[in-house]
């Protein structure tokens, strides 16, 4: 029996993977072929989706992008034997340069296994980290994470080990509090940044690695309960995670007696409801508690006063998913990747107008240019690349002069950018950077939690001022006003929503000033 793989990942599905799988199943039946369909995760080579793979003795052979109508011809031309005669054949999957030149640690299984099969997960080194963690003292687990140099992958890059140590040391006895005695692990799966999809790809393609990472975090800090705060914009991830949790419970990887150890860890999913600010950890905690997602002033830190007032680890999906490898292979093995104070690998996400968009996991230190051209293949439109936004909607728009900066937390910060969650959004030369600056303010206006005036009112004014600049009304005065406004937002905002919205606005002004001085067309645009 030959395995044929068709991904069940959102991007593959968005391009018709279900119809491809249906057609394939039908043809296999009609032709009485000895083959079975496996719905895997995506390899993250999105320009080839739907990517169909076939097992051969020499490894998997890839075909893509496949439409249902390609299936008969592919089968006629011996796809099931791994034949390369059809033009959609991409050769051995692992030999596709985009994939071959990556360093996949966190994503080592994604696209390879059936995401819901615990047997698959185990056969590909799954749960080794957890098994080791169960033999260690809590503080030894934290030692291992500290040794790895792992920093938070959600944006702020705070050392994960240090956060865990704080929660481990925190006293959870809160007399009179309903949750006294408990600590929590909260996984931030709100992935709100445009241009990022690594959390989603991982949750859909290898949910058990996140579950394993959260259980290990629980053992490390003494937490018995975890929540995954998942954005509601991810219905497919929701389905897959829900099923994975049910199966993990049934097989003793979650629940009251973890692998017979007598230890407990319960895991629940909570859905967000379309509010970008709920990705900010304290707003997320309020939302988790059933409130409006308002940002809390810090201190107290979530590590001391987190979910339901108890000591809480809040970590991004990718931070937690890096932990099983760190426990299985040792912190040092992870720290051997990377540069400077950025250790390990970062899953970069190539998005927007690129010929080869997708997931690229690499050690820190690769340049933006290499990601854009060697991996991304330049624009999909064929026009010149012009601007690149790195690190989400609060990140700067960088022009070509900055593309040789290595992707490293400190180096990017020195260049006025940020790695953030590793999202890279590319624009060709048809982009109007004044409109992009306007959108940054508009997004802040729509998504502000409303707690501080500079953010709430500043964003409204920001949109108006940029509109006046675009319409060429008192341009000089309004440009000065916009700079003032950016300064006020930066200085007077409680969180990065208001505080960093100036990044994309100012970088657009600084690097693309001509776009703010275009002749007016009377068209106010989107």
């Amino acid at each position, binding site marked *: 029996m030959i395995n044929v793989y068709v991904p069940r990942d959102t991007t593959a599905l968005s391009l018709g993977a279900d119809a491809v799988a249906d057609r394939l199943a039908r043809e296999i039946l009609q032709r009485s072929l000895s083959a079975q369909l496996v719905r895997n995760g995506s390899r993250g080579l999105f320009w080839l989706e739907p990517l169909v793979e076939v097992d051969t003795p020499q490894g998997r052979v890839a075909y893509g992008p496949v439409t249902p109508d390609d299936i008969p011809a592919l089968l006629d031309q011996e796809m099931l034997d791994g034949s390369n005669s059809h033009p959609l054949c991409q050769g051995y999957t692992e030999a596709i340069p985009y994939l071959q030149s990556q360093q996949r640690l966190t994503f080592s299984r994604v696209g390879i296994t059936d995401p819901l099969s615990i047997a698959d997960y185990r056969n590909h080194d799954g749960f080794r980290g957890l098994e080791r963690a169960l033999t260690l003292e809590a503080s030894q687990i934290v030692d291992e994470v500290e040794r790895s140099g792992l920093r938070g992958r959600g944006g702020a890059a705070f050392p994960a080990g240090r956060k865990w140590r704080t929660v481990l040391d925190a006293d959870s006895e809160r007399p009179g509090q309903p949750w006294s005695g408990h600590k929590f692990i909260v996984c931030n799966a709100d992935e709100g940044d445009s241009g990022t*999809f690594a959390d989603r790809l991982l949750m859909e393609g290898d949910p058990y690695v996140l579950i394993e990472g959260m259980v290990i975090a629980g053992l490390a800090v003494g937490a018995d309960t975890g929540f995954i705060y998942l954005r509601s914009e991810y219905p497919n991830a929701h389905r897959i995670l829900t099923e994975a949790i049910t199966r993990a419970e049934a097989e003793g990887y979650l629940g009251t007696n973890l692998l017979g150890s007598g230890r407990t860890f319960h895991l629940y999913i909570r859905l967000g409801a379309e509010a970008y600010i709920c990705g900010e950890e304290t707003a997320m905690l309020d939302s988790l508690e059933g409130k409006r997602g308002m940002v809390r002033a810090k201190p107290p830190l979530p590590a001391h006063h987190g979910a339901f007032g108890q000591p809480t680890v809040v970590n991004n999906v990718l931070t937690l998913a890096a932990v099983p490898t760190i426990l299985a292979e040792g912190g040092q093995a992870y720290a051997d990747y990377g540069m400077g104070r950025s250790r390990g690998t970062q899953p970069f996400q190539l998005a927007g107008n690129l010929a080869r968009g997708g997931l690229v996991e690499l050690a820190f230190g690769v340049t933006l240019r290499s990601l854009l051209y060697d991996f991304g293949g330049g624009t999909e439109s064929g026009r010149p690349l012009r601007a690149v936004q790195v690190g989400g909607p609060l990140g700067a728009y960088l022009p070509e002069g900055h593309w040789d900066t290595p992707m490293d937390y400190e180096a990017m910060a020195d260049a006025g950018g940020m790695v953030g969650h590793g999202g890279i959004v590319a624009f060709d030369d048809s982009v109007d950077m004044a409109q*992009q600056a306007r959108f940054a303010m508009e997004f802040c206006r*729509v998504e502000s939690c409303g707690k501080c005036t500079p953010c709430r009112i500043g964003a409204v004014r920001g949109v108006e001022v940029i509109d006046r600049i675009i319409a060429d009304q008192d341009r000089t005065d309004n440009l000065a006003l916009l700079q003032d406004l950016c300064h006020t937002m930066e200085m007077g905002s409680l969180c990065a929503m208001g505080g960093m919205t100036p990044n994309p606005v100012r970088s657009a002004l600084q690097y693309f000033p001509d776009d703010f001085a275009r002749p007016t067309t009377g068209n106010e645009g989107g």
Partner: protein
Amino acid sequence: MQEPNINDQDDRMTQLIEQHQHLPGALLPLLHAVQQTFGYIPHTTVPAIAEALALSRAEVHGVISFYHGFRSQPCGRHLLQVCCAEACQARGSRELVEHTRQKLGVDFHQTTADGEITLEPVYCLGNCATGPSVRIGDQILGRVDPAAMDRLLDDLTRVPLRFQSQPMTPETSDTKRGAQ
């Protein structure tokens, strides 16, 4: 969409409250369940929710209005969300939005006159390398150019509700409401 029958609504609410009220931080899961059931969160359900969770009605309203994902008004038979975030902009979503508005004759947050389609923006569906992205129910579509949008709208509106056999299966009604 019709107002739910009040007695049915009370019965369903009793069930939903029983299923959710003991969860830690029960309000959001309960609101999601209510919206999934009725297609929106009817004002008439707020008192029961508030009472069950020992909150004031104002608090419950405050939460509903804070989140873009909760609706206190019914929407059209289909909820069509078009991604308006940067990576989709880089792939033509601004043009797609314009085209869709014109084609439907509505702006964002509005429903077509025939009650078929409510148009909403969404800020990222995690499909950022193959946008413009669109969500319809629990389905996400990629590379949606204006021609693909026209085909989608044709498909969605081909079978008007009044000609469909009743009752709708739970699955299709979920898809239509686009609720979570």
